[in-house]
């Protein structure tokens, strides 16, 4: 599980504080929807929760360990439990299948196994088999986004953090993705989603939080509790 406590962050030493004492938690088997206007700090919050960005101040705990105080080997061990999916899909040169397998290959999985797992992840998200051999960067923006999510699913993270995953997807694929995220959550994965599409995302969310004025404020849950 990931816990942020009293996190402050700014990108330059004299820049404005994007986060000011934010608290945030993603627990196993829980889906959290993060909302907030553009520029409110959602991406910063999620990157810090994704163990990619060291906050200027405050504590980041991953499975009870102070992440940024750990040696490199400890950070690598914990980082392998979390995957952050960027809002703008970042794809490497190569085919769709190679892109989906990238995480597994970087973790040292044999190529055959990695490609097989990538095929399964693609299928789970409804990426047609005929596209797997295509150059990933030539796909439409929506499909690129799906490839980035499939790549995250392929490594089977314990915590999955997605920044605007529904943007650019058609309704059918948005629903499919929401169902997949729900399924992951039901199987114990912690899921955090930043989304403006509050319809689908709110349905899968156990909690909704708003990023406002540099802090994180809980909103009423979709169930009203």
């Amino acid at each position, binding site marked *: 599980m990931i816990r942020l406590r009293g996190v402050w962050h700014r990108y330059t030493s004299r820049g404005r504080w994007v986060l000011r004492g934010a608290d945030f938690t993603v627990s196993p088997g829980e889906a959290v929807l993060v909302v907030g206007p553009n520029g409110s700090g959602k991406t910063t919050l999620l990157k810090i929760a*994704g163990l*990619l960005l060291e906050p200027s101040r405050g504590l980041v705990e991953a499975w009870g360990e102070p992440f940024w105080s750990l040696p*490199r080997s400890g950070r*690598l061990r914990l*980082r*392998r439990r*979390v*995957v*952050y*999916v*960027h809002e703008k899909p*970042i*794809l*490497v*040169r190569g085919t769709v299948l190679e892109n989906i397998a*990238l*995480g597994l290959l*970087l*973790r040292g999985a044999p190529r055959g196994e990695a490609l097989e797992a990538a095929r399964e992840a693609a299928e789970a998200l409804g990426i047609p088999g005929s596209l797997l051999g295509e*150059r*990933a*960067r*030539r796909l439409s923006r929506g499909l690129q986004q799906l490839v980035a999510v499939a*790549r*995250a699913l392929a*490594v089977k993270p314990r915590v999955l953090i997605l920044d605007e995953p529904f943007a650019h997807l058609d309704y059918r694929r948005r629903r499919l993705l929401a169902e997949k995220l729900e399924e992951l959550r039901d199987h114990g994965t912690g899921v955090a989603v930043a989304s403006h599409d509050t319809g689908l995302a709110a349905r899968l969310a156990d909690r909704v939080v708003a990023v406002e004025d540099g802090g994180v404020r809980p909103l009423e849950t979709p169930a009203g509790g």
Partner: protein
Amino acid sequence: MGELLEVTLRSLYISLSATLLAASWSLPLAYLAARRPGFSLVARAAEALVGVPTVLVGLLLYMLLSRRGPLGFLELLYTPAAIALGEAVLVTPLLVAVGYRVLSTAVAEYGELALSLGASEGQALRLALREALPGLVAAMVMAFSRAVGELGVALMVGGNIRGYTRTLTTAIALEVSKGEFEAAVSLGAVLVGLMLASAAAVYAARRLWEP
């Protein structure tokens, strides 16, 4: 025709050497600037110097390499090596500035992507460099194009010696001074051909590596 080929080959050889020499120090500098905030000033300075006049670089190098200059003992003045060195200095700002842009984007995007997928920091860096490669090759081709088309350095530290340091640009200058415009235009056509070939090489490199 024989002399035209000889001058063309010499221009190619000198400018290629200059590009590789400049890359050997410019790309590590660009990498440092992209990775360490303290070095980003180097990239800013390089951006400001991209358009430095070739004749100024030639003059400075002439003063350094002349017999009474601090590097006079190397006896490089009026040699092809002096031209290559001068052109390398000339294209350094371009290579640092473009290399910095390419590498900082690659490290930020692909480095972060790799880390988010569970890569070690070393693997993240390797992925970023792999993805930056087409951009770096394009930067080197641009540098070559600038080097092969410059006149000031080649004239001042090369001396335009027939059969030794004459390049396409100095040959053009000579032909114009003699009033031989037809010969100058022929040489110019070869020069433009080389530049177009460089642009085609960039395009081919991009087609090969991207997406």
